[in-house]
């Protein structure tokens, strides 16, 4: 894997070289290509919990059944130094083939899917339906007193939709976590 190391050339202290912005917390989306072998997810998750890193979201599924490869998409937060450590540490896991930091490697697209169950009657039910329309959510199940909406979009869009559904009778929500990919060929 390639490392993105900050290199200074000043002859001052290493600490003077530290970018003052370093202490800022950043959110990065990492795409990790792994061998789909037993325990690989446990290794990745164990790395994050063992070293005190954050996982905002994590998705995993086999993406190349013939090559037995899976793609894990992790959204994580940390200072730039911590993000570099996370990538380097992921690179040490034997079944990890590649670590791509989609946040720094150029523009990328991120999508998440969610299912929301909204229970209600009368005006609230109508309003939920109307908002779902605006957000391009699909109804995948309905009874006389409930809907299950399927919505796809950026995590922010899903957050916004969820916020709106709360007062309208949101009873259950399932989110997939983020899948992400670099733009362009």
């Amino acid at each position: 894997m390639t490392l993105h190391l900050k290199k200074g050339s000043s002859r001052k202290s290493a600490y003077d070289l530290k970018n003052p912005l370093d202490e800022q917390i950043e959110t990065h989306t990492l795409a990790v290509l792994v061998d789909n072998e037993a325990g690989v997810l446990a290794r990745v998750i164990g790395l994050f919990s063992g070293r005190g890193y954050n996982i905002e979201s994590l998705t995993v599924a086999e993406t190349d059944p013939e090559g037995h490869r899976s793609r894990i998409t992790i959204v994580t937060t940390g200072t730039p130094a911590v993000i570099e450590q996370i990538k380097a540490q992921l690179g040490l896991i034997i079944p990890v083939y590649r670590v791509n930091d989609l946040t720094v490697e150029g523009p990328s697209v991120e999508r998440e899917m969610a299912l929301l169950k909204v229970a209600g009657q009368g005006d609230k039910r109508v309003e939920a339906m109307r908002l779902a329309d605006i957000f391009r959510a699909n109804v995948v199940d309905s009874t006389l007193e409930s809907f299950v909406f399927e919505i796809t979009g950026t995590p922010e869009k899903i957050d916004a939709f969820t916020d709106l559904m709360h007062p309208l009778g949101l009873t259950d929500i399932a989110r997939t976590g983020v899948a992400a990919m670099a733009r362009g060929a």
Partner: protein
Amino acid sequence: MSREMTGAEIVVTALKEQGVDTVFGYPGGAVLPIYDAIFQQNDIKHILVRHEQGATHAAEGYARATGKPGVVLVTSGPGATNAVTGMTDALMDSIPMIVLSGQVPTFMIGNDAFQEADTVGITRPCSKHNWLVKDTDELAETIHQAFHIATSGRPGPVLIDIPKDVQFASAPYKTKAKAPTTHYKPQVKGDLAEITRAVEAFEQAERPIIYSGGGVINSGVAASQLLRELVAGSNAPITSTLMGLGAYPASGDNWLGMLGMHGTVEANLAMHGCDFMLCVGARFDDRITGRTDAFSPDSFKVHMDIDPSSINKIIHVDVPIIGDIGHILEDFLKVWKSRGRKTKSAAIKKWWSQIEEWQATKCLDFKNSDTIIKPQHALQRLEALTKNMDRYITTEVGQHQMWAAQYLNFDDPHRFMTSGGLGTMGYGLPASVGVQVAHPESLVINIAGDASFLMNMQEMGTAVQFNLPVKQFILNNERLGMVRQWQQLLHGERYSQSWSEALPDFVKLAEAFGGKGILVDDPADLDEAIKEMLAYDGPVILDCVVEKHENCFPMIPSGKAHNEMILCDEETADAIDAAGKTRV
């Protein structure tokens, strides 16, 4: 198609093909087929330890004394869990180790069967990689891959969990050449552009220092030779971590002694005051850096390391060079020579005169006594009486370990084995067993504390059974000395639980195991006692009764910088502030 073998035979055949001559292990129900296969051959010697932790440390000692991976064989459940400490130790100190563990049969996994433990789950964070092999067909290739992973890149422990039915079932044997390989191929050559940048800065250095670590030793003897060549050619001063001792000879002209928490004044002040630091195979561990925001404030830093995750983890460096130390040093020297071996020799001379002033503090001097043996004196005498011998030293963990690093001289790599990263009491005796197995004719001494020695003392039985004449040099202060020192300096002399109460009679203990025991408590008898220990052809415990409240100095108190060292008891008052107390 090669011949069918049972899983157990595959294990033994694969080990042989990998050049294994020794296995450290302990049998049990889930590995009986492998023990049966071991019984029916003579190429691989099995050393029966007395506790599986002992097997792991013995394998570490063997590995560090030979440069080859150490191999451990344990049963399921408690056998495997007992191996966890040694695996963690090997992970922290980058020691190549292959642990083979038995497991309950595949059809019983998950049933809470007798002696079942989730061994791969338990050892995942303390191994470089591990496998549960569910199919005999995959066993040979897994073992071959395990050796590759344990020994390449940054070395470390791996574990292969082998269910009993997999050991019984048959499959064709796959040789190393035929087995599928892994994609794991760590970078060994350093980036030439970075190396050139490092050389350019090195040429300009007026106050250079070379700070070397265990990575030089792991890389092989050639790396130590190249390091020596670089030091000799540039006249740069050199210091080393605990793990790196011996890569540059302690008798060498440019040697400043060990650095870090109990390092020498000259090494630590040179680290603090240098304008160029070449870190060769070390990792800026907290025992080395002290307070990181005051660490070597004015230097241009070059970091050579095989592990990309070591770069910028603790200290931000100016030039990172990832690769094997031997390869990097070779290229570094090539580039430096091709540019005309430039150094700022006049400035470096001036730098040396500054360093000589620091050396004049003679920080390792101590008040000797003619009534009670000072631990430092005991080690100085041991050094004097053994220095020309073919000698290997292991240590336990505590004050005696730091004194061993300070007062014994190591002129070659692979001669000093100690638990650095994990600080495992109980490491030294089994490690000495492993070293002696690897070098039956050499002198192997474990420098021990009374408390540490008791942690794995059962391995005296192994030493006696296999005629391993290991010497246990116990600096007996009847205290958990290092704990006591911290309590004295940090906790108002409240010595909570740091007494070694009810110590055994070590002479009788040695005799009970079938070895020789010697007691010495008078400085006048010390030399004779050491000579008696050396002359005896068999395992010896030398119970060297020393000053009880001696402190280990110099010391950089936790939370302090390199230039805030304390040198002696008189300087300890208020040396450590509240923030320092919260650190380890």
